[in-house]
């Protein structure tokens, strides 16, 4: 199996029960090709976060297998897997734990062994990609929430991941910051998996959506088609904002 033909992400029959025997995933299968942008939708408690934590091997040990760009998620590969899967967590205060923006963005690549001039170049490129050039020496606490979210994206971009995984990227953002982040995300040339409750955001950024409910994939298709399927939406506790008609907006690209 050559790297060039392997999908960015291949999830096959993943099942998982937490140590308290609560079963969160019942055989999830998902295939994401390189360059695809996929929204992962579903109500609270559907297993979305559990699935995300499987992608980089933080959780595991249940049935099924996952591979990222052809590399199986397993103990000996974890370091490389964590470089390939960049997860941006929901609360930027959890993601940004170093004293300065620069050190935070450098943390990931430095753990991968990148040093010196190349490390500085990675940091500069990642900050530029999220429009935060010039903030390298700032402390996370002094940034606005939207800026912190963008730096959180940069910390992951600096690892040059195969797939960028975002957990609720638009939560707690004011409308302007939400739009700015969308502009940044749509300009990135990466494979994207976005966990979200913000359905218009999913429609704007992802041509494809996957609906997860009760630990199984219940729908997989074009975002506009899924959002227009009133029955599917109602069955999975997905709701569009008042007055929003997914057929009224032009999907991206």
């Amino acid at each position, binding site marked *: 199996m050559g790297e060039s033909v392997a999908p960015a992400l291949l999830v096959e029959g993943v099942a998982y029960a937490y140590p308290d025997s609560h079963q969160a995933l019942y055989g999830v299968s998902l295939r994401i090709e390189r360059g695809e942008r996929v929204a992962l939708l579903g109500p609270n408690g559907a297993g979305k976060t559990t699935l995300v*934590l499987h992608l*980089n091997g*933080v959780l595991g040990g249940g049935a099924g297998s996952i591979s990222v760009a052809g590399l199986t998620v397993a103990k000996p590969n974890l*370091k490389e897997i*964590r*470089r390939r*899967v960049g*997860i941006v*967590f929901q*609360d930027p*205060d*959890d*993601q*940004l*734990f*170093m*004293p*300065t923006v*620069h*050190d935070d963005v*450098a*943390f*990931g690549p*430095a*753990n*991968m062994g990148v040093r010196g001039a190349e*490390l500085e170049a990675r940091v500069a490129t990642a900050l530029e990609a999220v429009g935060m050039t010039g903030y390298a*020496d700032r*402390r*996370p*606490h002094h940034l606005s929430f939207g800026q912190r979210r963008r730096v959180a994206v940069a*910390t*992951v971009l600096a*690892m040059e991941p195969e797939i960028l995984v975002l957990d609720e990227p638009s939560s707690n953002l004011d409308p302007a910051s939400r739009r700015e982040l969308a502009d940044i995300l749509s300009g990135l040339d990466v494979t994207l998996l976005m966990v979200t409750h913000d359905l218009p955001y999913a429609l704007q950024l992802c041509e494809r959506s996957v609906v997860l409910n009760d630990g199984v994939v219940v729908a997989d298709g074009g975002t506009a088609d899924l959002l227009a399927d009133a029955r599917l939406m109602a069955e999975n506790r997905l709701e569009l904002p008042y007055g929003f008609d997914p057929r009224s907006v032009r999907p991206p690209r």
Partner: protein
Amino acid sequence: MGAGGVHALYRAADTPVHRLPAEVKIAATLAYVLAVVLTPPQAFWAFAVHGAVLLALVALARIPPLLLLRRMSVEIPFVVFALLIPLLAGGQTVEVLGFELSQPGLVQAWNILAKATLGVGASALLATTTEVPDLLVGLQRLRVPPVFVSIISFMVRYADVIVAEAHRMRVARLSRGYNPRAIWEVKALASSVGVLFVRSYERGERVYLAMVSRGYDGAMPQLHPVGSARAGQWAGAMAAPAIAVIVMGAAWASL
């Protein structure tokens, strides 16, 4: 509260003291404080020289004296304690303004007062002229064990976050009409502290998850090269503690 936190101690300026690398300043401060502490209290002239050295550095760093005095107010509990010693200690006594004061007690009080003042002054000088992230890099370059540097670094990073969280909880309590005025009314306060602890603990777990997800395997990466301070910078910064050490030696010799 919140907005500044520990970072508010730094006062930006462009002076020779500000420009020195943090590790040099930390080492110099430590050496100076050690020399001061080891100086015998009976040698009053030595403390005058120590004080003059510190004041010269404060002037060189262009720190307003009033600001430094405010920073040094953390010393007040020690001052109170030191002032009580002559009243409480035994031994030979002298009469001052009608009070029977213990002579060894007076020397002890002077000892604590002088050394604490100089030590706090030196620390205040360091904190006022060095940014916190630089201090952390300095500790790392001085080969302080990485786990200690990480602990301090996390404390610095999350102190403001936790203070902000505590502030939100206080607003929530006040909004529901809870404003304890007596000690037996503080039950809700106690449970808030417990909740704050649990929340911080959970945040710790989430932070760890975020670290692991970016390849953390138990060792913090060395992001700043070791040993970048020039010999000249070391020599310049060590001048102050060198004077202090010489004075300390001379003080012992003169006893």
